[in-house]
């Protein structure tokens, strides 16, 4: 465990017998289950070539649901946590140029991306927005990447004015962005004039949005031949679990993507923070519901 800043620690996880860990690519995350049985998702921020450990970083959030405080206060070297296999919903796709944007703890998936792009000799740059330019996570590692990295803080390169910085669309540039909701929302807004598909976002907080009131609906699970009533007060994921057609879920907040199901009929109401196409046939039942009285899903 390394203290990266006043409120961020990084943690290296190794297999119990030191066995090589499953491979991963920049942008991947793992589920981590603490001894308190709380499960959270953390981006891998170490070196993919190092198969002996995974590195994650955790921000202490006093006013959150408690897992990050547990990590800071009680997780110690040598203790056991349960970690899942890496999944990647935020992969680096081929592009002419790359613009990486991170804020705060959102540097975690972006750091391995920056390293991979530097190794490839790609055309890339990174803007990292932090509160305090004197102490922020992975300072030495970011400095080692040279002048393609700009640290935006009042006492460094100055604050990043996203609206101005992103006003002009840059065709051929793929943008990869991770940070708190207000940062990712601001990037999304600033890039309104950019070509579709240029922005790749990873959120670790649900997108702030207004949803219509919950209505009950029915789900027909086509493969398991079960029909499930979803009452207004239960999530579709929970209703499926109770009916015995459990779909694996993890974040339960529409950000991690682990509960994805394919819709075969009816029209889902996407309430997650992953879907950009409102007509997408992939839905996340931990938060999403239905616009039609019934849905058919490939479960």
């Amino acid at each position, binding site marked *: 465990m390394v203290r990266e800043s006043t409120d961020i620690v990084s943690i290296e996880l190794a297999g119990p017998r030191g066995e090589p860990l499953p491979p991963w690519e920049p942008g991947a995350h793992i589920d981590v289950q603490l001894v*308190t049985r709380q499960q959270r998702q953390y981006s891998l921020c170490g070196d993919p070539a190092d198969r002996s450990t995974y590195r994650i970083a955790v921000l202490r959030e006093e006013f959150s649901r*408690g897992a990050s405080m547990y990590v800071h206060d009680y997780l110690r070297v040598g203790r056991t946590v349960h970690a899942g296999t890496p999944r990647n919903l935020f992969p680096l796709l081929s592009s002419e140029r790359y613009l990486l944007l991170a804020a705060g703890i959102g540097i975690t998936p972006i750091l391995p991306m920056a390293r991979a792009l530097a190794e490839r000799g790609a055309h890339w740059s990174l803007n990292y927005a932090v509160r305090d330019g004197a102490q922020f996570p992975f300072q030495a590692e970011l400095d080692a990447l040279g002048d393609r990295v700009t640290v935006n803080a009042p006492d460094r390169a100055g604050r990043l004015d996203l609206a101005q910085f992103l006003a002009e669309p840059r065709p051929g540039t793929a943008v990869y962005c991770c940070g708190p909701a207000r940062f990712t929302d601001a990037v999304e807004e600033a890039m309104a004039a950019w070509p579709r598909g240029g922005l790749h976002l990873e959120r670790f907080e649900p997108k702030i949005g207004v949803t219509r009131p919950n209505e009950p609906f029915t789900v027909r699970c086509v493969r398991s031949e079960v029909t499930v009533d979803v009452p207004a007060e239960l999530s579709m994921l929970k209703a499926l679990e109770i009916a015995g057609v459990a779909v694996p879920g993890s974040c339960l907040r529409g950000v991690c993507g682990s509960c994805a199901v394919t819709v075969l009929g009816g029209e889902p109401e996407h309430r997650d923070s992953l879907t950009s196409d409102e007509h997408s046939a992939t839905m996340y039942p931990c938060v999403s519901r239905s616009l039609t009285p019934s849905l058919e899903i490939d479960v």
Partner: protein
Amino acid sequence: MLVKNDFRRLDEAGLRERLGHPDQATTDKILDHLDRNCLAFLAHSPFLCLATSDGDGNADCSPRGDYPGFVRALDEKTIVLPDRLGNKLADSFRNILDNGHVGLVCFVPGMTETLRINGTAYVTDDPGLLAMLEQDHVTPSLATVITIDEVYLHCGRALVRSGLWDPEMQDLAAEVPSSGTIWAEASGYAPGVAQVIDDAMTGAYKTLY
């Protein structure tokens, strides 16, 4: 069964004559706040019993359980207890409205010592506080905030003697009437209803939040 409930009643002098007095070491460990060890105990505790009483002193004690650490320490003198789905009798809440004094005994599975906390409580629906207590995508609608008067680690003899954490002791459960049986008989339902209640409870236990 009981012949007559008029056994000799002891006063404090009688009690002390039988029991003696506590060691200095025992009273020394009583704190008026949570120290780091008590905080660590709470951070790993998934279960407690909450004792309350109304303005007339009528007492009540009820179980509370959730993921380990569900009782959050806001600081060394303040803890908060989320309200989860229950029977809506609100016995504890109604008592707390009447009389804020509460007593808690907190358990960590596998640990024989228990943490006892006494304090003064109130009930709140503060949205910021409730958001911190979200579990399984459900935010509780109420929480109990407790200001701590006394904290102490209670020795483990009761749990050692009872074998509470011994897996082999769990064969006892099969000898007790099922919840459906107890419920149906207490309510004067027809005998067949017990199974219906048992099945319904099995379903209900899948919705925990």
